[in-house]
Every structure is written in structure tokens, then in C-alpha cells.
């Protein structure tokens, strides 16, 4: 006895508009790049700006991915996320400075080894910090947004101030490792080597993250948890443990983003995380809170737009992102790839 529908199933066709709706945000990135070309005119400047916009976008994505997943999973909004960015930057840069011999050498291998060590140290420290932050600051206020915001802001201040205590009140300047200085020229456009590296790291991370989310059981649990946490629990998974894991991973990624951003700006300050939070929030909101793919697209849009506008009209760079956010929220009030919560 089978009761398969004897007519041909039709929903695959019906969802075409649905699929187009999902594809639309992805198309926005090339559209913006083309618009940038039109507005800027000069191909070489455009190429340079596009690369640096992509690099910036990748770094913002790395910082934002943890925040958006943490929100998606447990409805926790962490205003202290920026602290991990700053701490990551300070730890990473300290390691780089300590490894001055390696970064100063004209050897790509040594340079990369130094960066790798810096990144590992930064991620270890921010991951551990994230773990503590979750236990001490976030856990007591599950389910209470108001308190979450207040308490995590408090955590942000305390960590930021501790950076001053540990590393002193001044900003720290940092030179990029020898082999990452300078630019390569392509089609008349100068592209900084470091930015190309940042684009590469960002892409690899995004793909890896997608693979984990799509292909592994943990990834399945995370995605299911974002959509309907109580049901994941009812199937027998301990969502809290998964959540703590995601929180730690997200904090470590913020730390990585901090190191990368520090090397990008070649200067770090305790307040840098707090400043980045503005962009991180914009990215998480326009992407759709809880959506990693949305955050990725959002980050690229923000990075590109910021660079194009900074070239055309420097003073309007940050405001352009507010305008972008406004436009996207008018189009899709829940963000580009909204996460529909089961209720």
C-alpha cells in the first residue's frame, strides 16, 4: 500500500520565485561592484577599491559571524562581542611584536608562521574569554533581552578598560610582516598584498563555515537550533552545550577578525572593537539576524560601499552604511535572508 501522490509533484516549480528571492541578495554584490565601476570611472582605482572593499568585508564577516549565530541559536544579543575583537588584536599584535625577528625577515615562511602563531594565540585567548563571558555575564540573563543588553555592555566596558590596564593607555602601531608589505600591480591597479591575503582567508573561512554548517551533524544541529531550539532539545540534543560551543567559536573568530583588522589598519586601540561593533551590527541586521550567509553578503556590501564612498566623498563613508541599512530594511524588514523562527 503506497500512497504517493499520483500526480506530478509541483512544489519544485512553485518555489522558483522563492528561490529567486533567496538569490536576490547574492546578486546585490555584483550589482554594487558594477555601480561602483560606473561611479568611479577609472578602472584601476575601481579595482583597488574593490579589492580593499572585499578585504574589509571579509574581516567584518569574520567578526560578525559569531554574533549572528549566537543570536540565532539562543536569542542572545551580545553587545560585548566587540571586546573580543579588541582583545584578539592586542594579543595577536603582542605576539607579532615579540616575534619581531620573524616578521622582519624577508621570508614568507617565517612571516606566515608569525602570523599563524599570533592568530592562534589571539583565538585561544578570545575563545577562553568568550567561555568565561558566557558563564559569568550571559548565562544568568538568558531570555531577558533588556538585561542582556545592559549586562553585555557592562562586560564590554570592563574588558576594554582591562586592556588599558594591561597594555597601557596608548594605541599601538604595528608593521605588517616584511613580505606582506607593499602591493602587487595588476592591470594598472595597485592591490596591497595584505588585502589579497585577507580576502583569501575570509573566503576560505566562509567556505569552511558553510561546509561545517551544511555537512556535519553539529552544523545540522546548529541550523536546526536557529530555527527551532525547543524541538532540537525534544529530539534529545543538549542545545546549551552546542550554544556554548558556538559562543566560544564566535568569540575566537572575533579575535581572529581583530588581529586581521589590526594588521589592516596597522594600529590598534582598546576602543577598536567598540567601533567595529557598529559595522558588525549593521551587517548582522541587514543580513538577517541568525543567518551566516546573510552576514557574509551584508559584510561584502558594507565593505564595498564604504570603500567606494570613501573614495568619492570621504565624509559620507560611515553614513553610507546607515543609508544601506535603511534601504535594505525598507526592502526586507527582517534583513536580506531572514531567519524565520518557528513559533
Amino acid at each position, binding site marked *: 500500500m503506497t500512497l504517493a501522490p499520483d500526480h506530478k509533484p509541483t512544489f519544485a516549480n512553485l518555489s522558483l520565485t522563492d528561490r529567486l528571492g533567496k538569490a536576490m541578495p547574492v546578486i546585490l554584490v555584483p550589482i554594487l561592484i558594477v555601480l561602483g565601476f560606473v561611479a568611479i570611472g577609472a578602472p584601476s582605482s575601481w579595482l583597488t577599491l574593490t579589492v580593499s572593499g572585499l578585504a574589509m568585508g571579509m574581516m567584518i564577516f569574520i567578526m560578525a559571524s559569531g554574533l549572528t549565530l549566537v543570536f540565532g541559536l539562543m536569542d542572545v*544579543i551580545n*553587545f560585548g562581542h566587540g571586546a573580543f575583537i579588541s582583545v584578539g588584536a592586542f594579543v595577536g599584535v603582542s605576539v607579532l611584536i615579540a616575534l619581531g625577528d620573524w616578521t622582519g625577515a624577508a621570508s614568507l615562511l617565517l612571516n606566515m608562521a608569525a602570523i599563524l602563531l599570533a592568530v592562534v594565540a589571539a583565538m585561544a585567548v578570545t575563545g577562553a574569554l568568550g567561555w568565561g563571558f558566557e558563564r559569568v*555575564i550571559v548565562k*544568568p*540573563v538568558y531570555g531577558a*533581552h*533588556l*538585561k542582556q*543588553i*545592559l*549586562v553585555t*555592555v*557592562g*562586560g*564590554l*566596558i*570592563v574588558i576594554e*578598560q*582591562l586592556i*588599558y*590596564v594591561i597594555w597601557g*593607555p596608548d594605541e599601538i602601531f604595528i608593521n605588517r610582516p616584511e613580505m606582506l608589505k607593499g602591493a602587487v600591480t595588476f592591470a594598472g591597479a595597485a592591490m596591497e598584498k595584505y588585502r589579497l591575503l585577507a580576502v583569501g582567508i575570509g573566503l576560505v573561512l566562509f567556505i569552511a563555515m558553510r561546509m561545517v554548517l551544511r555537512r556535519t551533524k553539529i552544523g545540522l544541529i546548529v541550523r536546526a537550533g536557529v530555527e527551532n531550539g525547543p524541538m532540537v532539545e525534544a529530539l534529545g540534543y543538549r542545545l546549551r552545550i552546542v550554544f556554548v560551543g558556538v559562543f566560544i567559536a564566535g568569540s575566537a573568530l572575533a579575535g581572529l577578525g581583530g588581529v586581521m583588522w589590526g594588521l589592516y589598519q596597522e594600529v590598534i586601540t582598546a576602543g577598536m572593537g*567598540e*567601533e567595529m*561593533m*557598529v559595522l558588525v*551590527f*549593521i551587517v*548582522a*541586521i541587514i543580513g538577517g*539576524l541568525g543567518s551566516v550567509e546573510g552576514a557574509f553578503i551584508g559584510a561584502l556590501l558594507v565593505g564595498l560601499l564604504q570603500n567606494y564612498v570613501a573614495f568619492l566623498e570621504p*565624509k559620507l563613508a*560611515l*553614513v553610507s*552604511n*546607515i543609508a544601506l*541599512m*535603511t534601504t535594505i*530594511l525598507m526592502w526586507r*524588514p*527582517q534583513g536580506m535572508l531572514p531567519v524565520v523562527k518557528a513559533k
Partner: protein
Amino acid sequence: MIVKLLSGDQPRSVLLTLLLLVTLVCLAGAPFLFDGVRALDTAARICIFIVLAASYDLLLGYGGIVSFAHTMFFGLGAYGVALASSHMGRGFDALLVGSVSGTVAAIILALLIGLFSLRVRAIFFAMITLAVASALAVLVSQFSGLTGGEDGLTYKIPRALTSANRMGEFMGTQISGKILNYYLVFTAALILFLLLLRIVNSPFGRVLQAIRENDFRAEAIGYRVIWYRTMATCLSAAVAALAGSLFAIWLRYVGPDTTLSFEIMLDILLMVVIGGMGTMYGAVIGATLFILAQTYLQNLMGSASEATSALPLVPDLLNPDRWLMWLGVLFILSVYFFPTGIVGRLRERRAS
């Protein structure tokens, strides 16, 4: 009569009543009770921050909405007065035009942000206000031609309100325009505070609290939740802008650090949380304690830091520049262990 002035919302605790009375008397008589410019300046700041914190309480305590743009509205009022005074020249008309246009700008901006972010989910509001406020702060420092950038603006206010205006002696104190200025600030602050008290005790305020408790249910009963929340945002922005105007009139200087910075935003948050959210009187107690601590406790930290200079790390932690860190710790602890704030505690004591 007094009950009516307070809109029927009495302090409901003997100790609290006493504290409020002492605060009121000290502020009302500040020019005569305390010596020195610093004391008067502190009193004026307390008046202004009481209004600012109370207007924030309308949003946070009564509406359950977290905003990070409150300093932006405060700044709009302040820059309104500053810009009007620098462009129109000194005069009361400039003060009026500046205050009104700053307030109107604040209301419009609040309306836009509110309609935008509150429509979707309340949590957007916190994030979006943070983004918008920091964008505005960046704009202010970038358009330095207009705003004076990081340096801010210094301008003249009517002579009648400055110390150059000497009006004789009273009770052994020189009465100058400065004191007149103080009473302008004091009176305006008192009126604004009573107005806020009236708002939160009106039917509007009660609906707002019902929404805070359960927005879903309030919507089901038929209240337009977005409308009430946006309205609260606009009202609180307007009062914050007026507080900003008072601040500008008092200081004769406006800069990003004193009006727009994130740090001031944190100060306001702390005042409201420590004083007691959703009580209005909490803003009075919180702002007063906070400003006093800020003015006098930082010195203490300095001496403590010096006294412990032999120890490792401790002097760094006690450095007056780390003032903010202790505020942060205090903030977290009060949200956890002290969620009803000082006013809440005082009232509980009476109840038990």
C-alpha cells in the same frame, strides 16, 4: 497640591522622601548653601542629568526599550543652541531658536528611527540606535567647519546670564548672572521632571508599562504597540534635547566629548539602573549620586592609586582613568543583584 504636582506618584518610602527633599533643597539653594564655582557647576550638572536620566527612564524603565542614541538627542539640543548662538549672535532669541530647532530635529530623528526599527523587533532598536548615534558622532567631528569638530564650539550667551552681570548681594552671596543662569537651569529641570512624572502616570504611561510587561498581550487587547513605543521614543528624545539645550546654555561650550560620546551614554544608563528603572525618582537619586561620585570620588581614586603605588597592578586598577571600569563592574552587579535599584530597594523595605 504636592500630590497633584507629583501626578499622584509619591515616593512611597520615608527614606526616599527624605533623600528627595534633601536633594531638592540642596539644589534649590545651591548658590547660597555651597561656596565656589565648582559646587554651583556640580549642582547645575546634577539638575541637567536628572532630566536626561529621567527622560531615558521613560524609555528604558517604562517602555522596556534600550536606546544608545540618547546622547545623540542630548547633543542635538546642545548643538542647536550652540549653532544658533554662534550664527545669530548672543541673545535670548538665539537660545530659543536653538532649543526649539534642536528639539524638533530630535523628535524627527526619533520618529524615523522608531518607525524603522520598532516595526520589526524591539531588539533592532538597540543596535540601530547604536549605529545611527555613532554615525552622527562621526559626522559631527568630520564637518568641523560647521560644528567645530573635536574642539567643539564656544559661543556667547546673553550677558544677563553670565557672571559679568552683577546684581548686588543677598544673604552674603554675590548675585550674578551666573546664579540667574543656574536658576534658569534649575527651574526648567524641575518643570521637565514634573512633566515626565505626569507623562508616566498618565494613561499613556500605563499602556507603555503594559506593553513592557507583555507586548503580545497589549497588541491583542488592541493597543498599537509600535505607536506607543515610537511616541515614547519621541517624547524622551524631545526632553533629552531640551536637557542638552540647558547644558549648552550653562556651559557656553559644546563638544562631542561632553554631549555625544558613548561614555556619557553609559553614564546615563548607569544613573538609571542604579537609581532604579521605571521609577522616575530613581533618575534623581542615580544622577545625583553619580555626578557627586564623578566629581569627588575620582580624586579619591587618584590618592588611593598613589598610596598603593608600591604594589603591582593595583595602582593601575585604581588609576582615576580606570573610573569607567569600576562603573562597568558596578553596572553589571547592579543589573544582577540590584535590578530594582536604590528606589526599588527603599520601597521594598517599606513594604516588608
